[in-house]
């Protein structure tokens, strides 16, 4: 009897100790877009170095998955490349706020045998290629933009995403703005009814398919084109210039948007006006409940977001993301104050 009661007492003490230690560590789960996964995981590990009791775990299951899971409250925060629609916001059990975290760009990648030059594309030409109206590389519309480049008379193989994705959302959002036919025929969503082409799973497979299929064109996030050293073209922006995606050009797109930034930050910055702007840029958002149940986690996330929007931005350029403009960060800090942390 004595040994038994001693045993239970020591077990209880051990449990209390463990529980006590666990109470110190705050674990937060998030899920969502694959596109910002590299920068988010860098941020979470750097933040953990500064605050060793904060462990943020992120699963990159896709933007739609992030929206679903944060609505169901299986994760504390979500992440998405495409803002939530009014219907999706309606179905959430509480008010969800969007916070832009970084900027990204989607680039047209291509692989044409014997063509080493950088190609210029206009929005209309890209839309027509993806609509299946331009089927050969030596079509006059492409030739007009690329004087001096001999393009072969071979078929264009369009490569798009087979899985739903925020990258697709950014791409089709741009196409819908530059091509009324795309807007009415196909529309804008994470997953669309592609008029033509083959589908790859993930940015990785699209990059792989484009590299291996001669005469193909696809779209990937800028970082994948850079890392896989695939040729990507410049795109004509609203001001008529041909701009190749770069950190500066993407930040410039966001700077233009600040002038008309809505209070909830749900704005599309594709085809933004202005000089030096890369037209296929987008914010990527973190989704947080305004009034979450777990106030400790809410406070931790707010502190993390304040760090990410200021100190965290210096990690962006190395990984191929564009940092947010100052003006946007200021607006976000004000919005973060609205989150209930007690």
């Amino acid at each position, binding site marked *: 009897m004595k040994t038994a009661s001693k045993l239970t007492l020591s077990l209880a003490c051990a449990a209390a100790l463990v529980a006590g230690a666990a109470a110190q560590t705050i674990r937060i789960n998030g899920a969502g877009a694959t596109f910002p996964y590299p920068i988010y995981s860098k941020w979470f590990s750097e933040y953990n170095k500064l605050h060793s009791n904060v462990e943020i775990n992120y699963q990159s299951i896709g933007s739609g998955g992030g929206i679903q899971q944060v609505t169901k409250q299986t994760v504390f925060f979500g992440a998405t490349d495409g803002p939530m629609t009014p219907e999706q916001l309606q179905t959430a059990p509480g008010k969800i706020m969007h916070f832009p975290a970084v900027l990204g760009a989607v680039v047209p990648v291509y692989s044409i045998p014997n063509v080493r030059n950088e190609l210029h594309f206009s929005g209309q030409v890209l839309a027509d290629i993806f609509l299946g109206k331009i089927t050969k590389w030596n079509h006059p519309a492409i030739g007009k933009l690329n004087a001096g480049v001999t393009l072969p008379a071979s078929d264009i193989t369009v490569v798009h995403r*087979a899985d739903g994705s925020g990258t697709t959302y950014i791409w089709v959002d741009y196409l819908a703005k530059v091509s009324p036919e795309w807007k009415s025929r196909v*529309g804008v969503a*994470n997953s669309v009814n592609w008029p033509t082409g083959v589908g790859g799973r993930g940015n990785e497979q699209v990059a*792989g398919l484009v590299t291996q299929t001669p005469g193909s064109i696809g779209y990937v996030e800028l970082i994948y084109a850079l890392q896989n050293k695939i040729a990507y073209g410049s795109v004509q922006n609203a001001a008529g210039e041909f701009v190749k995606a770069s950190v500066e050009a993407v930040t410039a797109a966001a700077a233009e948007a600040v002038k008309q930034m809505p209070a909830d930050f749900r704005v599309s910055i594709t085809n933004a006006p202005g000089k030096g702007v890369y037209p296929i840029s987008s914010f990527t958002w973190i989704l947080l409940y305004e009034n979450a149940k777990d106030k400790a986690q809410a406070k931790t996330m707010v502190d993390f977001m304040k760090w990410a929007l200021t100190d965290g931005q210096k990690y962006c350029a190395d990984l191929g993301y564009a940092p947010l403009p100052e003006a946007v960060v200021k607006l976000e800090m004000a919005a973060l104050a609205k989150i209930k942390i007690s």
Partner: protein
Amino acid sequence: MLVAIVCGIGVVLANQSMLSVQKFGLNFWRTEIWDPVAGEFGALPFIWGTLYSSVLALLIATPIALGIAVFISELCPATLRQPLVFITELLAAIPSIVYGLWGVFVLVPAVRAVETSLPDAMRQLPLFSGPPLGLGMLSAALILAIMVIPFISSISREVLKSVPAAQREGAYALGATRFEAIRAALFYARTGIIGAVMLGFGRALGETMAVTMVIGNNPKVSMSLFAPQYTMAAVIANEFAEAAGELYLSALVEIGLVLFIITLIINSLSRLLIWSMARSETAAQEPPVAAEAGA
């Protein structure tokens, strides 16, 4: 308990797909459009792609698998038997995603080279029309065939082993050559072999990762071997995680339900055939014993 789990799966699938079943009804099986933006869903391209790729895979795999089975059980020297069995069954152990990766890096470029070198006269046929991408029905069928061969061959081998010696000896006694005796054995074992083929068919129907990486993921119905197409398992794997909206999810689950039903039917039929083959062979062995007892 396993029966309960299978029934449970069926019930959950039917439950979750109710929304889509009620909205589209039988048109779901006939419509070719798959448009998440407009909310129009039709499963015809996926059903077509799944059946076409599986049937094609079987047409390629069955002769090869039967050849392997016959060789291992009848013709090859005893020392080679075990290693060959081991190697064939190793094919079954390779994970699907590894097949997919091999397909993307090795098979698809090879198929593209073959497709490009096809003479123009043949390109006019609907079976070979379309740009030679490499990705498409042909690559998918080839990869499925490779995945299905070990299943068909190992079951056929077992079935051939169970052909009673009396059959073969009878054939030789009637003056058959070696190959004629093998043919007689194959004929005797035909129900079991058909069962093995149907089991392979069931496997091919459900194969996901390897197929989605080489088939091109384009939901269009097409006769052409070169055309990129789509299968039921592939569309679920690709779109389910991101699908937002009740109707979209429900449509995907309905495709899962269709796949579940078809695979269940094919597998049950194959089991039934193999079982009836085993039964009829034990029944055939009884009369000689009874005759001896009687005499």
